[in-house]
């Protein structure tokens, strides 16, 4: 299976602290994406990192990718109560045949940020 697996399953922090979530996967990938899901809502794309990239930033988000360890991390700096959500990593595999980049999701990390 190629699914990403996040850890921890749940993370609880105070506002202003940093939150780090990790993702591991099993096979080669084309890219790795992080999504956020508020309770009962859809998946919001946060950031995509390609297999030839090692680090990427977007605002308060920092994503790293280590293809040798088949792992990625998502760091949210200076967290806010509004960051409370589930965070998922999703991987796709290199193109083969007619694959259109189906995504393989992990179970997610539930982040709670207390005011």
């Amino acid at each position, binding site marked *: 299976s190629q*699914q990403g697996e996040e850890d921890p399953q749940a993370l609880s922090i105070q506002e202003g602290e940093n939150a780090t979530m990790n993702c591991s996967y099993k096979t080669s990938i*084309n*890219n790795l*994406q992080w*999504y956020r899901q508020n309770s*009962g*809502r*859809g*998946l*919001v*794309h946060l950031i*995509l990192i*390609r*297999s030839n990239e090692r680090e990427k930033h977007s605002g308060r988000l920092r994503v790293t990718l280590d293809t040798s360890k088949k792992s990625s991390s998502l760091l949210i700096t200076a967290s806010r109560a509004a960051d409370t959500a589930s965070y*998922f990593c*999703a991987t796709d595999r290199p*193109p083969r045949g*007619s*694959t*259109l*980049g*189906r*995504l*393989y*999701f*992990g*179970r*997610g990390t539930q982040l709670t940020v207390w005011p």
Partner: protein
Amino acid sequence: EPEVTQTPSHQVTQMGQEVILRCVPISNHLYFYWYRQILGQKVEFLVSFYNNEISEKSEIFDDRFSVERPDGSNFTLKIRSTKLEDSAMYFCASKFRQGSNQPQHFGDGTRLSIL
């Protein structure tokens, strides 16, 4: 910012009945997907669609499932002879084009409840 729109937000259907879930992808996107998420579980791929045909489908997407792009804007998922285990959140996603730096954009989902 353009977004993927799904209707209805919640669908309640008797077991054995047919249901159609509707999606309006982002207007200039060419690649379309359906995923589902059973409560408390991972987001799972169902099907990808391009150029008016299915590109790939998972083992979940059995012969009770079908997809259609009846016009230039809608993308539908039909489930015939619904079962209790079809109860889940169904997400539509779209992507502008193929390529390793293209994210999939998700709608807010349709919660399907089979009674």
